[in-house]
């Protein structure tokens, strides 16, 4: 058993690497994009607001798997587009597009939960809208959105397994291949431990961030 685990470990770690890469890149790109989308979603200009709302509806209303498949297989078939992206790029674009929509709604909720008095307090001190958002509103939003954001982040970790549809060798696909090859369920257990360890680390990091913001009360 131990020998078997040691034997499969290198390929599983390699798979984990692919998953981690998708996870990290998605997070780094979709968080700022989600914030931007949230600001457009509450913009004073009606048409911007509607476009953002429609985009969020589309992204949340269709399966992530469909989005991944569409970008990889669908885009090349659209006349005039004919772009064939690589599997990794396709996956990242789909994940970022999808997660930005979810993050945007979390950020929007956070922004709208801030008391109007904060805007007035800033305005009478001469802050512009941009300065108010950047220095006063958004720092407070961060504190409020960490718990719901943490949920999404943990979901993302597990959602990375969806890339198996593009035949990418992430942790889940490597695991499945091993199980089928060796007719042994041990890789499933090892994969589960991998995911649990990652989630544990993420939870700890999120706790840390929450503690950091706990220095002030509202």
């Amino acid at each position, binding site marked *: 058993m131990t020998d078997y685990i040691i034997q499969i470990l290198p390929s599983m770690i390699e798979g984990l690497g692919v998953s981690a890469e998708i996870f990290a890149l998605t997070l780094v790109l979709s968080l700022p994009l989600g914030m931007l989308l949230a600001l457009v979603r509450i913009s004073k200009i009606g048409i911007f607001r509607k476009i953002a709302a429609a985009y969020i509806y589309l992204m949340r209303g269709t399966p992530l798997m469909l989005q991944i498949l569409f970008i990889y297989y669908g885009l090349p078939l659209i006349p005039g587009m004919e772009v064939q992206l690589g599997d990794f790029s396709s996956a990242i674009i789909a994940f970022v597009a999808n997660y930005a929509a979810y993050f945007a709604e979390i950020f929007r909720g956070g922004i709208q939960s801030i008391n109007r008095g904060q805007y*007035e307090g800033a305005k*009478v*001190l*001469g*802050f512009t809208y941009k300065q108010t958002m950047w*220095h006063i509103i958004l720092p407070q939003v961060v504190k409020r959105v960490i718990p719901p954001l943490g949920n999404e982040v943990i979901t993302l970790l597990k959602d990375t397994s969806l890339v198996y549809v593009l035949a990418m060798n992430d942790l889940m696909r490597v695991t499945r291949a091993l199980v089928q090859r060796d007719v042994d369920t041990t890789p499933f257990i090892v994969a589960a431990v991998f995911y649990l360890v990652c989630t544990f680390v993420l939870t700890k990091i999120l706790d840390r961030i929450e503690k950091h913001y706990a220095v002030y*009360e509202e």
Partner: protein
Amino acid sequence: MAFIEMKDIVKTYGSSVVLHGVSLSMEKGQVVSIIGPSGAGKSTFLRCLNHLEIIQKGSICINGQYLARMDAEGNSVYAPEKEMRKICLNMGMVFQSFNLFPHMTVLENIMAAPVYVKGMTREEILPVAQRLLEKVGLWNKRDFYPGNLSGGQKQRVAIARALAMNPEIMLFDEPTSALDPELTGEVLKTIKQLADEDMTMIIVTHEMAFARSVSDKVLFMVDGRIDEEGTSEQIFDHPKNERTKTFLQHIL
């Protein structure tokens, strides 16, 4: 022209009129109190002065600069955004609900606007912040977050924060209404101190004794109109208007 000149201000929300042509004229260094029953439009009137509320008719002029002018039909036309910001920077405001920034310490609350809005360096503003916090007696609380202060302390920080922008005019919108009775004194003392330093101030308040002692002029507002105005003695000792008399009898 007077230092602050608000003329025939009309403010409507949809079809309901909240201010029916209210005017105010005051000189530099004066203290004006606005009193009256709840819902009279006192706060709304004050908030028109620094553009927190948009007026439909009338004009607002501060130190010779028009925030809003009247066109031929009497409709208000606001100055360009930049100019308005400049005019409003001349006014500090203190709210009933403090509106301190909860994610910043007391000291950061004071320094934020001078640094981000005026572009001052922290070294430049720190001595000013220290002087102001000492003045309101809270220098020792500089590293506290607002959430850990009492209401009275919060309001004193809010006053110091407004003063840090070095305004010529201070607006107080029911500064003690959210405070426990035993905490109002410390805030009123701070405001009184400003009055003694000849700060130009407009105060919306329910503290009649305070209004009486500090004001050069008192406006009594009812239903979006000024019912009576005059000096403290005129309003509090010899009110002419029945509404004023009844109101003061009930409250004093």
